[in-house]
């Protein structure tokens, strides 16, 4: 017992001050990309051809974050002249169309606070997570939100065991055919009103699995999402920021 207390004192207080104090992610971290539309045409085309998930539209010089797996290949191919990843982790959006980035909109993406939801639930959100394909990195980094550093429960947000206790379902993975029914049943078991969150590029578009016949290219084909959180996987901060903004706990 003594050693436990001693260790507790030594470990100190490890929870971050976020959102009061901004967290700076490392230089190499690939967050929100910036796009240079004046880049040489051929370079853009080469990027578009090589992009593993067809996230780049060469004629519009745009990039769809809902498809991007943040592999960095376009930045490498264009040597940063077309795409450059920034350290901005705020990549969530409440409108799917917003995820298509054009040049010079390196502003934060919009997440509109759900006023109705805010009023109804105050500052609390119970989330039932459903894993439906994918690679489990998304799930692993959601679990991290429960560790002392992020400590998501200090915001009234909790991951719960039963859909019956949930206000939201958060889906990861491209939705495998074998998980389709279980996902729908979980959704149905969640009482109204409820929101649906697509977390990770897989759940938005199928991600790297897009096109495989054993999955459904993401959530859209069966459920309408209220909040999109791109990333492969999204950094825990990206998820946290998106949720806090959706609940109006942090403001624009």
């Amino acid at each position, binding site marked *: 017992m003594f*050693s*436990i207390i001693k*260790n*507790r004192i*030594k470990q100190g207080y*490890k929870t971050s001050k976020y959102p009061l104090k901004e967290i700076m*992610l*490392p*230089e*190499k*971290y*690939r967050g929100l990309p910036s796009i240079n539309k004046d880049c040489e045409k051929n370079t853009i085309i080469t990027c578009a051809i*090589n*992009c*593993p*998930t067809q996230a780049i539209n060469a004629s519009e010089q745009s990039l769809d974050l809902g498809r991007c*797996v*943040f*592999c*960095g290949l376009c930045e*490498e191919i264009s040597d940063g002249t077309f795409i450059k*990843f920034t350290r901005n982790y705020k990549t969530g959006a409440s409108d799917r169309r917003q995820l298509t980035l054009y040049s010079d909109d390196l502003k934060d993406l919009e997440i509109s606070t759900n006023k109705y939801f805010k009023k109804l639930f105050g500052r609390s959100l119970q989330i039932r*997570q459903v*894993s*439906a*394909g*994918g*690679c*489990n*990195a*998304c*799930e*692993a*980094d*959601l*679990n*991290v939100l*429960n*560790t*002392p*550093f992020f400590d998501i429960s200090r915001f009234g947000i909790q*991951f719960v*065991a*039963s859909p019956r206790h949930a206000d939201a379902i958060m889906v990861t993975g*491209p939705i*495998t*055919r*074998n*998980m389709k*029914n*279980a996902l729908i049943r*979980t959704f149905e078991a969640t009482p109204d009103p409820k929101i649906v969150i697509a977390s990770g590029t897989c759940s938005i578009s199928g991600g*790297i*699995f897009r*096109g*495989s016949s*054993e*999955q459904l290219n993401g959530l859209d084909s069966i459920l309408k999402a209220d909040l999109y959180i791109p990333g*492969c*996987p999204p950094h825990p901060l990206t998820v946290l920021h998106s949720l806090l903004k959706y609940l109006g706990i942090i403001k624009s």
Partner: protein
Amino acid sequence: MDKNFIKIKNGENIKVNQIPYMEFDLFYENVLQLALNGYSIIHYFAYNDNFQTRLIAVFRKQNFLYIATTDAPDEYQNLTEKSIKFHNYERELAEEFAIKTINHPWLKSLRYHSNFLGKTDVFGNDYSNEIPGNYEFYSITGEEIHEVGVGPVHAGIIEPGHFRFNCIGEKILHLEIQLGYQHRGIEKQILQLKKSALPILIESVAGDTSIANSLCFSEAIESLANVEVNEEYEKIRGIALELERIANHVGDLGALSGDIAFLTAAAYYGRIRGEFLNILLEVCGNRFGKGFIRPGGSKFLININQRRLFLNKLKKLKKEIIEIADMLFNNAGVLSRFESTGIIETDIANDLGLVGPVARASNLFYDVRYDLPTGIYRNISIKVATEKNCDVMARALVRYKEILHSLDIIETLLNNLEGTKPNKNINYSLSPNSLVVSVQEAWRGELSHCIITDPDGNILRYKIKDPSFNNWIGLAIAMRNEEISDFPLCNKSFNLSYCGHDL
């Protein structure tokens, strides 16, 4: 005994026509003899070449791989009854290539999908129906027997799978694990993808094993493309693989602590795991090492500043890890839950073909880094961590020992870095009509990729075997005669991958 097999090294490429061919009956006998005589199976799968379905068997004994091939029959008398090691492989053959193994004790679909050839389904499944399809769960009858079904959606943030327990009172008589919910069709998809997408798909086979998968893939591709890798990159790859191992092992110790409500250790280890993921983030921009390793080398280097920083950080973390472990492993409450729980005796672990920390905790001496070393592991000495008690405690201790050993390896490698330039994308062309088997010690154990190319150097077959493919059955067996309340703890002491298994 292995004279009918070609003997090669890990990562060595051979021409397909160098692989000894046997008539099926002879192949059957030979394969069975090897399996019964201390050779372990790394692969046993089928592929289609010019409308002919072929079987490939890859065995390992000590430091070598042994390979042979035959033409696949439509059906044959099962091997599983003679050696349980074939159990999942034969189910997979039936599912992927409609090869029926007669009298197989449990011929049930493994991942629930239609076969690759468009043949009549062996299981009689209609895949528009829900998994598990046209097959009952194993069921025990009797007045006091009851069944408990859990999943596919579980209570925590974890992957989907279904567990069916047959219990008498609180005691588990039998556990059946039905997977396949994570099946994304990766082996089929690989054949359709453009080259630039391949490494990314490979990294998403199992995200917590991104680095090991990427390494397996890269070494296989390099072998087929005849590309030499600079030693500097080999060191960086070693660092990456060991970081992945530590992060996951530390996370596992935390999860085990959490499961028995020893929340202090759970919280500390949970946080420390994150520190290792953050090191990866700093080096390569992704917490799981996605985008780090590519054929030809590594996309990222570790500079002098980072090296100093990491060395200091690792020293501090090591101290913390040890302090917490002292607290954990000396706590009577912890010991009473960990010890004698979920035992898998050595000979059973061996018969089942278990791998990785789980096997080493049952006192089986095998670590790919030691037995089949490639890359930097050829130059450093590896201590294989084993334990004798075969229980949850042993599995925790093996992980703990491996964490400390990996920290030492990283320290040595960091100190030996010289600082060369990162590689550009190598534009690889693969040698035609060839086969390569690449094996790595992922944190869960033996991970292997096998690639076969066609006459144009395109990939004809890409077989992935995650250590979980071997080990899920171990969890089921470990649960027999245990209390159902010990399941979560045992499960965490295995911590197997659903997506790695389901592909």
